[in-house]
């Protein structure tokens, strides 16, 4: 039994067995599709076109004739029944493997005081009057040079010691600080020792970024990003917790993030820097608490039910070999400390980088992602909450939504004539639109009256301007606006925004805004008192702030009070490696914020429902937004 698969220019034959879902068959064939809903038939990410053959789609048996029209179906819901079949995969359904690096951030200038360093010492030969072993002599030299009270050596390095120690030799030991101890990870004659490298990792629910750094000079050498391969199994944090109830599924998620996501990135950045991955002797990872658990292979189940407790919040340095990382096997692995079950090390990193807590004025930090976290801080007191925005801002779950990668529309501008001006990442024809573009679209649409406060289109205007279409989703038909006609897109299909998409965006922005509003009310503060509003997260870096205010995602405050720090999680992970004071400072600060459970906050649901309108049911909160409903 053989299946003929075509995708773009490629064509291949794959052996198949009856009854295996097409999505699984394609994954085995090295063509993983976008099954971000976990193959539940919900996200429509794995659409394929079925050519001649017989199939079972859901419970229905469907035959496509050789001269008949191809049938669209979801690969996760389809099994091939006939011996021969033809399937076409649109590029948009393939799980992308090349993500855009959305991680620009600025490291504060600092004197390099890294947690890893090469330490070159002269080790005297053993003296007859005071006999001492090789290690004792090296240890004494290191204690004096570092300086350090406690030094220890790994067995692998100890094995290399005799060869590295000819008489009166200068040797270079690669040492890494592990709490009060400096550990010797490698030892070599000074003239041949390769300088050590370190790697910072931002483990996002959706995107993972790796930065390779030189700890001696304190500079970033290379960066690379790709999608967290766990999205093949489940889309958001809640779905990941739900997915890994069985130990084998937990192990599968750990392998997906380490072996299929982080290791290829480590190999990529090392190859680009001309270095062997074994030179990476320390890695620091920042992620939300669930991502940190899955990275370590710890069950996140307890985070998924009251009282939402982690297995561990503050971590000691683990060993690379225990996690299967492609780096020095005895290398140390730091996981940034978490504030709570739903407020993780990524937020601790943001807070450290933005230096939010020490400031006296009312400051806000929002880390926008699949889960948005909000911190409100004033004069040393801080409140924190997490709110489930869902993946819509990252393009997922929208009909033609894409992650911020080349080919995605990044910005849209238009007026009443619906003269859409699109900016595409990397130029060329677009194949979808990412979160920043959908925010522009809704804000511009609201301003010119195309979209009303409920997120509904002026259908007459769409028709009059020739931009109307209606689209049949699984749930039913929906009105839609054609943003890019088929002739101008990279997919051969028109790129449209549906009313269903608008409803998803409204829920996402309402969750974020309501989280902020609830914290403000708890503290008895008003939005006008916010002096500094820090936005972090890859998605936040690309948004048009004015449009985000018009949508009602961000509060209506002077735009110069916003500060976009970029990928604070990655910056924090870099600092944890390059600045010995950073990790202790983060470990101290995670105890500070008081965590607010929004579902127990009486106002939250009201704030959420108020925020479901554009910009808000309480239009007086958005005085600068014209056209707001009275």
């Amino acid at each position: 039994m053989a299946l003929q698969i075509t995708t773009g220019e490629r064509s291949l034959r794959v052996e198949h067995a009856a009854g295996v879902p097409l999505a699984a068959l394609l994954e085995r064939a090295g063509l993983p599709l976008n099954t971000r809903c976990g193959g539940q038939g919900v996200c429509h990410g794995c659409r394929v076109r079925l050519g001649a053959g017989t199939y079972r789609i859901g419970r229905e048996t469907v035959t496509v004739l050789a001269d008949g029209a191809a049938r669209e179906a979801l690969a996760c819901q389809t099994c091939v029944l006939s011996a021969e079949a033809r399937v076409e995969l649109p590029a948009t359904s393939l799980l992308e493997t090349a993500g855009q690096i959305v991680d620009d951030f600025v490291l504060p200038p600092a004197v390099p005081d890294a947690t890893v360093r090469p330490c070159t010492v002269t080790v005297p030969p053993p003296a007859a009057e005071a006999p001492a072993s090789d290690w004792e002599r090296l240890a004494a030299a290191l204690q004096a040079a570092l300086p350090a009270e406690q030094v220890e050596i790994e067995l692998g390095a100890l094995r290399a010691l005799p060869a590295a120690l000819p008489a009166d030799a200068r040797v270079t030991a690669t040492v890494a600080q592990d709490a009060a101890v400096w550990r010797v990870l490698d030892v070599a004659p000074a003239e041949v020792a390769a300088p050590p490298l370190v790697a910072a990792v931002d483990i996002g629910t959706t995107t993972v970024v790796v930065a390779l750094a030189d700890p001696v000079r304190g500079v970033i050498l290379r960066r690379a990003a790709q999608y967290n391969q766990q999205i093949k199994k489940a889309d958001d944090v809640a779905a990941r917790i739900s997915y890994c109830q069985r130990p084998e599924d937990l192990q599968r998620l750990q392998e997906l993030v380490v072996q299929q996501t982080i290791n290829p990135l480590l190999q990529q950045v090392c190859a680009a820097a001309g270095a062997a991955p074994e030179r990476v002797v320390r890695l620091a990872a920042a992620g939300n608490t669930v991502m940190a658990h899955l990275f370590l292979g710890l069950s996140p189940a307890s985070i998924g039910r009251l009282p939402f407790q982690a297995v561990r919040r503050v971590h000691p340095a683990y060993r690379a070999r225990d996690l299967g990382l492609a780096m020095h096997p005895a290398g140390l692995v730091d996981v940034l400390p978490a504030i709570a079950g739903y407020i993780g090390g990524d937020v601790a990193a943001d807070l450290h980088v933005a230096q939010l807590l020490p400031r006296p004025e009312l400051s806000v930090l929002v880390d926008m992602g699949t889960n948005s976290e909000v911190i409100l801080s004033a004069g040393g007191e801080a409140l924190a909450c997490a709110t489930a925005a869902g993946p819509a801002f990252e393009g997922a779950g929208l009909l033609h939504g894409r992650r911020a990668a080349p080919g995605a529309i990044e910005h849209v501008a238009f007026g009443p004539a619906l003269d859409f001006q699109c900016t595409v990442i990397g130029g060329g024809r677009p194949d979808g639109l990412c979160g920043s573009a959908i925010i522009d679209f809704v804000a511009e649409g609201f301003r010119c009256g195309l979209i009303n406060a409920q997120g509904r289109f002026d259908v007459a205007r769409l028709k009059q301007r020739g931009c109307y279409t209606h689209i049949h989703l699984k749930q039913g038909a929906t009105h839609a606006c054609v943003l890019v006609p088929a002739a101008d897109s990279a997919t051969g299909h028109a790129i449209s925004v549906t009313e269903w998409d608008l409803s998803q965006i409204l829920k996402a922005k309402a969750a974020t805004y309501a989280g902020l509003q609830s914290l403000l009310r708890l503290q008895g503060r008003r939005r006008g008192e916010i002096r500094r509003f820090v936005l972090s997260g890859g998605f936040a870096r690309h948004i048009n702030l004015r449009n985000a205010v018009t949508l009602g995602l961000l509060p209506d405050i002077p735009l110069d009070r916003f500060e976009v720090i970029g990928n604070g999680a990655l910056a924090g992970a870099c600092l944890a490696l390059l600045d010995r004071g950073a990790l202790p400072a983060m470990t101290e600060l995670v105890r500070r914020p008081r965590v607010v459970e929004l579902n127990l906050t009486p106002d939250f649901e009201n704030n959420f429902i108020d925020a479901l309108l554009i910009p808000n049911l309480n239009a007086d909160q958005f005085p600068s937004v014209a056209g707001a409903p009275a």
Partner: protein
Amino acid sequence: MAKIEELYNAICKGDRKQVEQIVNQQVAAGAKVVELLNDSMIPAMRSMGDKFSRNEVYVPEMLIAARAMQAGLKIIEPILAQTGHKPLARVCIGTVKGDLHDIGKNLVAMMLKGAGYEVDDLGVDCDVTKFEAGVGRGAQAVLCSALLTTTMPYMRTVADAMKGKGVKVIIGGAPVTQQYASEIGADGYGADANEAVKIMDAQVGAR
């Protein structure tokens, strides 16, 4: 009393203030609240529910409409109680132990009220004792919600505890499926808020 278009539309649009204003005016003018409820308010909410099922209305609009309905109900409920008005049935609803997610559960509760049921909302993190107390107060059905697979297993505990009590157990929430409902011996599964109403109608309601 015929349908009051204005009230019906205000609920569908989700205009909470207008709903309160019209209901107050009607009550002051001596209108029968049962008729306000049965001829304008319940039909508005039922029609929103049906549109929701047909994908003509999405969750944001449903939530806004349900809250407007709630605002109207708040005014007439004390008067209804005095007149001895009989609801379709009495039900209790709660998010199961270990789970605090309640927006979905609240929407179901509001939809059921909007459809003419008397709803005893037990809140979040409900153990069997809370559900049993709901039954003790006269609930004919127990509705359980859970958002995560980590909390979903408690539904089986509730379903087991309700066996032989003569009450229906209906479950719902993101990870819940019909298959799971059958597996734990629940009487029904609602995929969304409107389906929950339809299932209640079929199980205990008069319609």
